[in-house]
């Protein structure tokens, strides 16, 4: 049976792993290669690396660390951040990444998703969505350039509409970053996950808010997501991956040994 995936997310800035609360105030968590090797050895099913500054400040970011990661781990991993062209993606895949994830550049240029899917296959193309629940309007909206506060903006897209759009254009997987919950460790937004699950015909990964093993269980059992992504609980040692996998297995979730 297809296992549910546990995915540590490593936010990368200037070559180190960092983590903020609600996308702000970043603390340094450790070296990319050391953390990648540690999570791989502990049983992570996949890793995601987000270069969180890349899309926001328009610079060409050195991605040679991707090659080093590929040399130390033997599980799949995805790289996000600053991928604006087929050429950017080609370089990262050549370094040994399995997938690339596009977020802000896909909002600026939705056809980028199709060009990536045509060139590399849909299985290589992940679309990350920064979704914000706006209490006034009561709707989920998509934000862009969330890496830097001054540039962050609300797009014209509602999250459900953007989910439909990216699938039409060739997304092979969707990572839903629920911004209101990010770094709060109070659980995923299950209502939002269930809504997006009903619209997603590709694998769906929950991101933002995990703080306890029960939160992972809820996302898998109650929203049927394919993977759950988390950062601070793993980086800070609040949840150990082997313990989490044992817990989920005992609760009947299909988990890789």
């Amino acid at each position, binding site marked *: 049976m297809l296992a549910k995936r546990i995915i540590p997310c490593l936010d990368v800035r200037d070559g180190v792993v960092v983590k903020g609360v609600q996308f702000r105030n970043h603390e340094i968590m450790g070296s990319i290669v050391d953390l990648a090797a540690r999570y791989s050895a502990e049983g992570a099913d996949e890793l995601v690396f987000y270069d969180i500054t890349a899309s926001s400040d328009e610079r060409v970011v050195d991605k040679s660390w991707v090659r080093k990661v590929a040399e130390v781990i033997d599980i*799949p991993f995805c790289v996000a951040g600053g991928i604006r062209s087929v050429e950017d993606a080609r370089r990262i895949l050549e370094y040994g990444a399995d997938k690339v994830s596009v977020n802000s550049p896909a909002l600026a240029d939705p056809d980028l998703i199709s060009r990536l899917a045509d060139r590399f296959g849909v299985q290589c193309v992940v679309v990350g969505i920064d979704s914000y629940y706006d209490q006034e309007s009561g709707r989920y909206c998509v934000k862009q350039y969330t890496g830097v506060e001054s540039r962050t903006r609300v797009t014209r897209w509602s999250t459900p509409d953007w989910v439909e759009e990216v699938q039409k254009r060739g997304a092979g*997987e969707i990572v839903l970053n629920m911004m209101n919950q990010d770094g709060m460790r109070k659980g995923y937004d299950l209502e939002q996950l269930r809504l997006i699950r009903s619209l997603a015909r590709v694998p769906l990964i929950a991101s933002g808010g995990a703080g306890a093993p029960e939160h992972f269980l809820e996302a898998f059992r109650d929203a049927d997501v394919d993977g759950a992504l988390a950062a601070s609980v793993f980086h800070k040692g609040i949840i150990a991956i082997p313990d989490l996998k044992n817990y989920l297995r005992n609760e009947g979730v299909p988990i890789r040994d």
Partner: protein
Amino acid sequence: MSKPKIAVIDTGCANLSSVVVALRKLDVDPVVTASADEIRAADRLILPGVGTACAAMEKIRERELEELIVNARQPLLGICLGMQLLCASSSESALGEARQIPCLNVVEGTVSHMAQGDLRLPHMGWDQIEIMRDHPLFAGIPSGTYFYFVHSYAMNISPATAAACTYGSRFTAVAVQGNFMGTQFHPEKSGAAGARLLKNFTEMQL
């Protein structure tokens, strides 16, 4: 004894670095090549594959690799699309086109899209294999072991099926026909289990 020489066949459309990295961790000497001499001289061949069957078969013919692969006598392992290319044919062509692409036809089987009902595709993640017959590839690997899959097309169950996987329907996870072998999953991305399978491949006596 010198290390076994492994030729990773460079079809020009696959990402080969992961396979080479995984092989380097074993006691072997991998070379990425499209050269006929190097391929003939190798002790083992690996046929990787990312992309579409249509594009990959075009590249194989363009590089005059078809005869070489079909006539190989040493153990050959196709990975993912590489396994599918060993079959008789595949329905994976350019977008919107519906036709059968003739493949290498050294393993009995055909490849078609996995779509059915509301099955989520690609089949992406860790899934279990069900071993159907014993083979040196499976030394130390029991039925139920998880491997990493990512694909939307699959090979049917055929006499060449050595292990199956079920997602929607049952399909071939590992194919074996003589010296031709293939895995639908990516052993190079499948942690310790994948490394064991690659080691078995490099060490097996046929």
